[in-house]
């Protein structure tokens, strides 16, 4: 299989490899795929109070296209609002990396990983708000919601 230059570039110089503290309230973690299928992606985001993704990190067990897809995905979502990041489509990744048909599922996995990380972050925030809501004033809650 011949790889596109962009896949090779991301594979050889992956952007944003690493781990964020998954216990941190501001961090959302997405873990998708399965070892038995030959691909597992973990993508993490750190979101600030304005809903902007300040940092994104990944680790991937998978082929070169899977590694490149996750690397590219982290690059794209960094600095974006989570609502915008959630609209990322696998087809954009596949197109940018010039993935052949058999490798499309690697980009699907990257899309899933982004969505799953955002979902995890949102869940954490909902829990936090619920917990905060018990003791805090309505004004605090409203203020927080406005910023999300």
């Amino acid at each position, binding site marked *: *299989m011949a*790889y596109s230059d962009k896949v*090779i570039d991301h*594979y050889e110089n*992956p952007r944003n*490899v690493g*781990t964020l503290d998954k216990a941190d309230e501001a961090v959302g973690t997405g*873990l*998708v*795929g*399965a*070892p*038995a*299928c*030959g*691909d*597992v*992606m*973990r993508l993490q985001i750190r979101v600030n109070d304005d809903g902007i993704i300040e940092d994104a990190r990944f*680790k*991937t*067990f*998978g*082929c*070169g296209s*899977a*590694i490149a897809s996750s690397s590219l995905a982290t690059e794209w979502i960094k600095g974006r609002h989570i609502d915008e990041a959630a609209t990322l489509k696998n087809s954009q990744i596949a197109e940018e990396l010039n993935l052949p048909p*058999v490798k499309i*599922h690697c980009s699907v*996995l990257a899309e899933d990983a982004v969505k799953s990380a955002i979902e995890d972050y949102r869940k954490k925030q909902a829990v936090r708000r619920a917990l905060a809501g018990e003791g805090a004033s309505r004004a605090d809650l409203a203020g927080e919601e406005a910023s999300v």
Partner: protein
Amino acid sequence: MAVQLPIFMDNHSTTRVDPRVLEAMLPYFTDDFGNAASRTHAFGWKAEAAIEASRETIARFIGAESGREIVFTSGATEADNLAIKGIAEYYGAKGKHLVTSAIEHKAVLDSCKRLEKDGFSVTYLPVGKDGLVEPAAVEQAIRRDTILVSVMLANNEVGTVQSLEEIGKITRAKGVLFHTDAVQGIGKTPFDVRKMNVDLASLTAHKIYGPKGIGALYVRRSRPRVRLVAQMDGGGHERGNRSGTLNVPGAVGFAKALELYEREGAAENERILGLRQRLYDKLTGRLEKVELNGDWERRLPGNLNVSFSFVEGEAMMMAIKDVAVSSGSACTSASLEPSYVLRAMGLDEDLAHSSIRFGIGRFNTEEEVDYVAELVAAEVERLRAMSPLYEMYQEGIDLKSIQWSAH
């Protein structure tokens, strides 16, 4: 000595033609280009003489009684097809059951599948984690209507060498024909059709430093006399067993390749075994969680099939792109299924995805082995640093305890 890149360490897929083989072949492309079937002139006689001499060499090498038991084919795929379909067609009235193993080459498995569509039934024997077929399982699988047992000499992925001598005793005692795909083992591990009671054997030249496009089927002519129905119709060459103008340079090269094994095989296998040990020691000395696939002792000298846990095989091959190896990973196949051989051995699927097959051969050097070991170890470390599974392993998380989102 600096190594030359790229390095070829995939000698199960094919091999470089030995220069001495090429030299022996050359005259048969130029001055001696005759058709071995031409009975009326010297060009034909010369070609025929070369063919007959080649047949004798091949027969001698495998312990056959005579060159007349050698049927030239285009390779082992054709030999496997001819053996299985040819036997089924000839003996089909006697019985419609065949026994083979789950780790055979596709040329055998898909020939069997074809027969199943035509009303035959086939037993696919399982193998253990060691990649070996239990001879006792062969015995149990044989029924009254069994006409053929086909078990390979050595496996092309994990290099495991089967107990043909024991299986041959069983088939002979039960009066069932015994075919073996001997492609990977010939020259590299003992093989003798008489000692092993083999009735049909598929061979190919390009795995033993000979040319591509020439192979042979050994067909026993006495005790018992084996019959088959030709699968290629035409001019009636090869005693009617396989029509088609003979590939004279190919046959000459095939025989020459075996002559080289007769002279140098023992020393060469010893040297290659040393290189294999060196590669394994270096890799396991530096890396943890390197899992050997298949039995260590009963294995071809040049084969090393290992899984680098937590690293996917295709990513690995991309990382070492100047070294030609192969992987059982699904990502390398169009089907997205990992190797059926490794799965038949009961390997966890994630380990099948992480497998790399090194095939060390005649032209590999110690320097190359050192270079490959160094490069592979460094890249496994790099990819593990990127692997969520490795991180979980280091944190002591049992990967099997996690609910993965299957897709």
